[in-house]
């Protein structure tokens, strides 16, 4: 080999300093005073193959493998005693860190480290593997940089937190591979909405964040947030499925909403939280005070998680009457939360919250078991109606829980009536219908609650033959003075007759309303007029044979 041959003397001449050079992993070049290569070690030889570096200038050598900057390497050594390595990118995308030092004996030594793997790994450590977007750590690093430079220029920097709505439902029902494919498409949509210089990161399962700098704020953040909500909410066609998700966005802008990275991130999260609380599919800007409200919710959450264990929940029962015979035919179990300092918390305040924080299944199961147990001890075999949350259908355990509650309480199955809202049928309709059919086969009655307040009630009536329709109180209130409500009620009762379902009117408060629902052909009634919710003990008394109720 010519190189080895021509170098023997050089190597020998520079002993012992360079005796280790040939075996070094780093590529080493020695240049003479004319800045031409006079020695290469084995690594360097391999690196530049098939070009023979001897006699070449660095520029020529670098150019041969697609890199530039041969002369710049010298600038560093001319101006500094401790030159920083210069990074070269070769045409095959390898990355080399190149350091040049002058030798006291004249000439220069150049060492080149292949940092490709190192750099790629560092890049990977900054990336979300699924979508290729930046990850949480990289987001924070970029934010630190942006805030530092914004502090110098006085520019605003916006952070947008984005949460996907309904993503979990897609993932749970259609499986992870589809969920992953969806996330990749979402990532693409983010990229298509951003300008150069914006940073987008995936920071959690279905959480994303964007840093927007060098833009007029808050106008630019408003425009971007609006665009993102629109873009992400557009339908997806994936693996033959049509998928619909939504997005909620929280925005915080430095310096007004904080100039510390972590404060800004937290405030964007608080704003996101508000966007979700206000119905999702929208964006909200951070406002002072959000933090306190968040604290309030946290403490509510802690209290609610404990409520069951601390026995702060109680069931009360509201009687239901047959309109023809005036007999009590059953009771609806209603939940009460007595909190030592909050007092009596109304269910409409804590049930949606319990659904949100995922304790509804535990509470729902407690309600079911307690109602069955108490009703089993009643002196008359009247029905007991228990409300089910749509979320209780998730997890596939509902039918087992019902069977177990019946077995444990010894309550005859035909006395149990489950009330569901249309909301329960909105998603995964087929799965929910399977559970309902299974319960029906057991002999449990199922009624449709809040009828008329939801979406496509009539479609659902066709899909499942409910035993009973509960007509929402918004149609009953002041029905005596509203002809339209009377018309609706008549329509619903005749529909029910045709479908062989019973009807019960909820929220009846006056004699006039009662007369109207009787005239409209309703079968049953429940309301303050005919009986307020009462504790279990009062039910026992009411059902004692001695005082058969003649309330109306």
């Amino acid at each position, binding site marked *: 080999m010519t190189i080895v041959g021509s170098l023997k003397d050089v190597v020998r001449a520079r002993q012992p300093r360079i005796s280790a050079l040939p075996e070094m992993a780093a590529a080493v070049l020695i240049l003479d005073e004319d800045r031409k290569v006079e020695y290469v070690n084995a690594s360097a030889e391999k690196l530049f193959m098939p070009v023979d570096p001897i006699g070449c200038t660095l520029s020529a050598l670098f150019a041969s493998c697609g890199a530039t900057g041969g002369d710049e390497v010298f600038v560093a050594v001319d101006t500094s005693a401790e030159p920083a390595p210069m990074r070269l990118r070769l045409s095959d995308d390898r990355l080399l860190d190149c350091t040049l030092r002058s030798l006291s004996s004249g000439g220069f030594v150049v060492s080149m480290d292949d940092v490709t793997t190192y750099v790629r790994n560092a890049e990977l450590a900054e990336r979300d593997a699924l979508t290729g977007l930046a990850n949480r750590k990289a987001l924070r690093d970029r934010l630190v940089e942006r805030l530092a430079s914004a502090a110098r220029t006085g520019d605003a920097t916006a952070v947008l937190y984005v949460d996907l709505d309904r993503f979990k439902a897609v993932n749970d029902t259609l499986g992870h591979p589809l969920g992953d494919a969806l996330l990749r498409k979402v990532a693409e949509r983010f990229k*298509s909405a951003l300008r150069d210089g914006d940073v987008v990161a995936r920071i959690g399962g279905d959480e994303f964040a964007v840093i927007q700098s060098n833009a007029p704020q808050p106008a630019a953040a408003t425009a971007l947030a609006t665009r993102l909500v*629109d*873009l992400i909410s557009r*339908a997806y*066609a994936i693996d*033959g499925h049509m998928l619909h998700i939504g997005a909620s966005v929280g925005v915080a802008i430095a310096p007004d909403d904080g100039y510390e990275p972590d404060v800004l991130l937290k405030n964007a999260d608080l704003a996101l939280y508000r966007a979700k609380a206000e119905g999702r599919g929208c964006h909200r800007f951070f406002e002072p005070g959000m933090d306190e409200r968040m604290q309030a919710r946290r403490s509510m959450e802690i209290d609610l998680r404990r409520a069951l264990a601390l026995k702060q929940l109680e069931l009360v029962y509201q009687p239901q009457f047959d309109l023809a015979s005036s007999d009590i035919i059953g009771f609806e179990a209603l939940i009460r939360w007595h909190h030592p300092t909050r007092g009596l918390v109304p269910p409409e305040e804590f049930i949606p919250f319990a659904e949100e924080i995922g304790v509804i299944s535990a509470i729902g199961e407690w309600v079911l078991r307690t109602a069955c147990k108490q009703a089993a001890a009643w002196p008359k075999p009247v029905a007991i109606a228990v409300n089910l949350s749509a979320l209780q259908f998730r997890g596939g355990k509902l039918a087992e829980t019902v069977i177990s509650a019946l077995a444990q309480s010894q309550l005859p199955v035909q006395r149990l009536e489950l009330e569901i809202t249309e909301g329960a049928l909105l998603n995964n309709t087929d799965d929910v219908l399977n559970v309902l059919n299974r319960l029906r086969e057991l002999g449990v009655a199922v009624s449709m609650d809040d009828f008329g307040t939801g979406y496509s009630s009539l479609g659902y009536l066709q899909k499942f033959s409910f035993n009973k329709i509960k007509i929402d109180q918004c149609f009953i209130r002041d029905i005596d003075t509203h002809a339209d409500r009377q018309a609706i009620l008549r329509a619903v009762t005749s529909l029910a007759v045709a479908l062989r379902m019973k009807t019960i009117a909820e929220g009846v408060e006056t004699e006039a309303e009662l007369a109207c629902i009787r005239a409209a052909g309703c079968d049953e009634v429940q309301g303050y007029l005919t009986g307020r919710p009462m504790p279990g003990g009062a039910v026992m008394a009411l059902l004692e044979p001695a005082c058969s109720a003649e309330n109306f």
Partner: protein
Amino acid sequence: MPDDLYRLVYYSRNTITGDATALAAAITSILAKSQVNNQRVGVTGALMFNSGCFAQVLEGSRSAVEDVFERIQQDDRHGDVSLLAFDPAPARAFENWSMGFVGASIDDAARYGALVQDSGFDPARMTGESLFETLRKLAIEEEYAAA
């Protein structure tokens, strides 16, 4: 199966601003680009513009239709995209059209179709099936006229 034939039907609201000339130019360029792109991946279909709305049918292998539709979804020249249908199809209905423009000529569509008007065309009230049928009939008329 990713290679099964699928058909996708959607409508959307136009967000291109400007006069009829600008709109016609935009539609022409969308159509030209669509024909090139769709040809490459074996997608066929038809596009219509009326009452300020686009209505489009795409058919092809499942994955090709999904990719094309995803690009269309990211296009800010339209908004409020309503995906009406995405189902396996027994056969192509627009065999000869990498993307046909049906209904009126592009110029007429741009001139008279930009406003939401009482043309009797309201895609919001249509099902995927009826919108598909509408475009298919228009395409047949067009082919007939051309023949």
